[in-house]
């Protein structure tokens, strides 16, 4: 990521811009990128700093206020149990954001490794890995994760994260495989091979870093895919299990009371919409910043 681009370095020759800096500058130059970044930071601030300023914690129950509308006492109102909506929503947003980020990083890493090994070695490695990818594409992810949901109880949500990632890497790995096949023919890879560098070192040191832009964008967009899948699983009670809560679980409860107590539904729904919107905006702007040629075609 530290290679310099001479044409981007500008006039002063003293300190050439790093690629990260160039990408960051391009990213923040467009409104879309700034908006996405601001919304996402806001969401993180709400989820992680919100509980610090809120007088209630997510497990507190206020027995003097059931289903109370928003007031100075309870900023977002309360639920049927007397739980404070602000505190509960912040806690759900924490879990949704963490699950989304972890799943995205994990599934993109799996896609990078599987795709580059398949594309680099070809032959049986390729056939086996791509067959596994096909099999996972054919298996209905929602059903398998839902059947496995009893395993995620008792705070074992990390297992849920791993399983969610297992069902998200396949399509990207096929793209990575195709790109690896072309990169493999480049001179620097051949040079490394003829110098006797072992294959796995070549893959991790030369192939995967060269696919970094694709992978960064993919990881960003996977965040929203993961959050959406997690939400629909949690809506049916198959996702993040109690005592943990996520926005999907809150939505399921809120939807039942949304008609006469809108605050039980709209704050969780709004949090989810803002999260996904900001992640999509960031992903889109990041793609344009990493590949300006594509940016000229699609803003």
């Amino acid at each position, binding site marked *: 990521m530290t290679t310099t681009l001479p044409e981007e370095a500008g006039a002063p020759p003293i300190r050439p811009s790093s690629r990260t800096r160039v990408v960051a500058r391009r990213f923040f130059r467009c409104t879309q990128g700034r908006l996405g970044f601001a919304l996402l930071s806001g969401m993180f601030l709400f989820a992680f700093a919100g509980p610090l300023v809120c007088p209630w914690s997510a497990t507190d129950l206020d027995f003097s206020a059931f289903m109370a509308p928003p007031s100075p006492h309870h900023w977002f109102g309360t639920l049927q149990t007397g739980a404070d909506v602000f505190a509960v929503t912040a806690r759900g947003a924490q879990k949704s954001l963490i699950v989304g980020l972890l799943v995205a990083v994990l599934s993109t890493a799996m896609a990078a490794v599987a795709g580059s090994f398949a594309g680099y070695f070809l032959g049986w490695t390729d056939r086996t890995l791509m067959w596994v990818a096909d099999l996972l594409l054919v298996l209905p992810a929602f059903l398998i994760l839902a059947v496995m949901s009893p395993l995620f109880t008792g705070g074992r949500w990390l297992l849920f994260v791993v399983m969610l990632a297992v069902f998200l890497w396949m399509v990207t790995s096929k793209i990575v495989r195709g790109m690896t096949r072309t990169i493999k023919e480049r001179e620097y890879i051949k040079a490394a091979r003829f110098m006797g560098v072992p294959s796995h070192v070549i893959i991790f040191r030369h192939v995967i870093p060269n696919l970094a832009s694709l992978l960064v964008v993919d990881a960003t967009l996977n965040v929203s895919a993961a959050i959406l899948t997690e939400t629909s699983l949690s809506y049916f009670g198959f996702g993040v299990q109690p005592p943990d809560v996520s926005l999907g679980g809150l939505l399921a409860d809120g939807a039942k009371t949304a008609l006469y107590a809108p605050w039980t539904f709209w704050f969780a729904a709004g949090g989810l919409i803002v999260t996904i*919107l900001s992640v999509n905006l960031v992903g889109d702007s990041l793609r344009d910043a990493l590949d300006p040629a594509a940016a000229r075609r699609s803003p």
Partner: protein
Amino acid sequence: MAGFLLRRLVNYAVLIAVATSLAYLLAATALDPRSNYEGRNPRPPAAVIDARLGRFNLDDRRPLIERYLVWAGGVLRGDFGRTWNGDEVTARLGRRLGVTLRLIVLGVVLGSVAGVAVGACAGVRQYGWFDRLSTVAAFTVLAIPTVVLANMLIIGAIWLNDRLGAQMFLVSGEATPGLEGGAGAGLLDRIKHLALPTFSLAVGQAAVYSRYQRNMMLDVLEADFVRTAVAKGLRRRAALVRHALRTALIPAVTYFAFTFGALLVGATITESVFGWHGMGEELVAAIRTNDVNTVAAISCLAAVAVLLASLAADLLHAALDPRVRVG
């Protein structure tokens, strides 16, 4: 060519078999049909429970491999077994599939047509007001999860019904049971039931299609074959529709095939929120009631749907793109 097709079909059959077997083994290990009987009040005697579970091949005291072989033998004869309380899985799923088809066909078709039209118009006049408006709209819609959208529609519809003092939209089920009146009233009733779920499916689809279609149009508009078409004297509109749009449709068609396949089993949320008793709802119910055979049958159907979709996508691709047919 025949050899290639055959190899591909054999690979598909193997994939379906492995996927369904894995799903069965997982479901048989993780789900516990015995608890359905043990939770009853009064609790049936253990011997009765064993006998019933044994009859439906659900007895967890028999070794897994034995149950698997019995189940696989049934599936090879086209029999997916019984649910935990004795219904035939195949017949049940057949009814459910009909409901799902009635739910999704309209939504998927409307969504794709609207999305392609919006995307194509936006692409032709890049950075025009329509392009900007549709981009903002697509980003907004893509950020709204189906759960939220469906519930928002229900809240809106109930508010509107109250305002109008009439049942403009009906938010639950497929039709009003025991409705009086002739065929016309029945049809109107069905349309009132169908409107909101169709909209909730279509609008999300349309957003995705419009993004794909816009970018494809931008790629194709500068292509040589469109310039040739204009140069040989075609009007711009004819050249755009007959040459540019046709080639630019390929990703949309692929996406259409895969979405249709995925929604056959995957319209879980739309079905549950709007109370349609389709496949997605059955899937959730099957897992909640520890119904091993139904879960396995649904996975089989999902696998078949995905592979048929990929086959359909290839055929449609060949129909749209002359290069594929020749090459």
